[in-house]
């Protein structure tokens, strides 16, 4: 009986080890820069998402939770999504002007399908800003307008 118990304990320990290794491997694959999934690159010649976030911070806004979207939506090359004072905000960088136009059309079609309380899409060079207020967080649009004002200066 004791022999059976020790055999089961040993099997359980091995199983836990295998699961831990497998989980560790899976996590490492998700890290940006890993060989299996190369991180999306920024687009040169247009304001980067970091520039936009810095501009907002300088304007007294508090961007939160911005992270890269993989794959980038709306035919963009690189996108980051987060929120500013409850407004869902996505910044995307595009390879060319045609892609920006197509991306903007797709974005607006998505709004038409899903519905938004307030939505703004505005571009500076080949960077597109999308600000959507789903929850009436910004009823008079002052936050959105601040986002736009700072973005337009880039």
């Amino acid at each position, binding site marked *: 009986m004791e022999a059976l118990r020790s055999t089961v304990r040993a099997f359980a320990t091995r199983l836990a080890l295998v699961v831990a290794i497998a989980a560790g491997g899976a996590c490492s694959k998700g890290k940006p820069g890993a060989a299996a999934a190369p991180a999306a690159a920024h687009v040169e010649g247009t304001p980067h998402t970091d520039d936009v976030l810095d501009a907002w911070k300088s304007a007294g806004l508090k961007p939160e939770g911005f992270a890269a979207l993989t794959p980038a939506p709306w035919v963009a090359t690189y996108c980051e999504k987060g929120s500013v004072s409850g407004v869902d905000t996505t910044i995307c960088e595009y390879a060319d002007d045609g892609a920006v136009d197509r991306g903007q059309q797709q974005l*607006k079609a998505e*709004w*038409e*399908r*899903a*519905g*938004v*309380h*307030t*939505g*703004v899409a*505005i571009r500076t060079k080949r960077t597109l800003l999308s600000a959507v207020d789903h929850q009436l967080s910004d*009823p*008079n*649009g*002052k936050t*959105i*307008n601040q986002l*736009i004002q700072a973005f337009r200066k880039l």
Partner: protein
Amino acid sequence: MRKILMLIAGLTLVFASATAQATLVHYMSQHPLPRKMGGGFCYIDVPHVHDFGPSDPRMYRQIDGQYYFVGDPSPFNYDGPRTPYYGPHPIAEANVQFGRPEYCYLQGPHYHWYQPPPQASFEMRGGAYWYTGNYEPAYYDERPRYYGVNEAYAPIVYARPVVDVTVVPPGFHGELVGGGPGWRATAVIGAPPPPMVQVGVGINMGGPPGAVIVEHDGGRHGEWRGGPPPHGGWRGGPPPGRGWRGNPPPHGGWRGEPAHASGGWRGGPAAPQQHAGGGWRGGPAPQQHAGGGWRGPAPQQHGGGHGWKR
């Protein structure tokens, strides 16, 4: 049978919800928020969408499927920059392109959030910008359609800009109105027409007569369009073919009465009095020309006796 009907109803519901599209309303710039949305003002000054329509379409212009607010933002808890205007004028917001001339038809003193561009024909006098350029034909063509903005504002009582109408620029072609609900003109005066300098035919260097007016019965004033007004007041330029040169024409056109309780010249031949507050600065009333005929911009008659408004 009942089960089949229920199944069809259920499938219809599922299909309808799957294909339903949100109704989004497109706005070009800032605008008031409807009361059902809590009222107030939306400060987004670029094209954007909402899931609600405008509270009063008379205060908007629809351009390429987008609503543009053409009214005075003041009554809607607006706390942004405001620029005072007097009378109708082209809409001249720097960031907004309409692709065609669009006009604000608000009478009397009012505010907008934008300043006129430096190159446009606006003159700041007496505390407001006055449009002193010529109106495009579109102004007259669309006036009957868009004049309703004044009716939309009629019941709204709010602080209008204080404008000294005694210093109306000679080039102003709009109407001087005495007041409306909640506001009143600041002066009751008469001013003679400015002297006219004519260069050839068809060039009017002097413009239409200056201000005469105003003290009025609030609200109804703007509705007068026909015969002699109850208290006088110039309503535009001379009538077509009358040959007016500053003195009262024989029939219509010049609407001012020669006498007024508050004094002041009203278009008669008497030499004008100089006003301390500015206003008319020219010489005596211009003389009648033998040749007759209006020499200024081509006058037009509009809207069943509304008078010449150019």
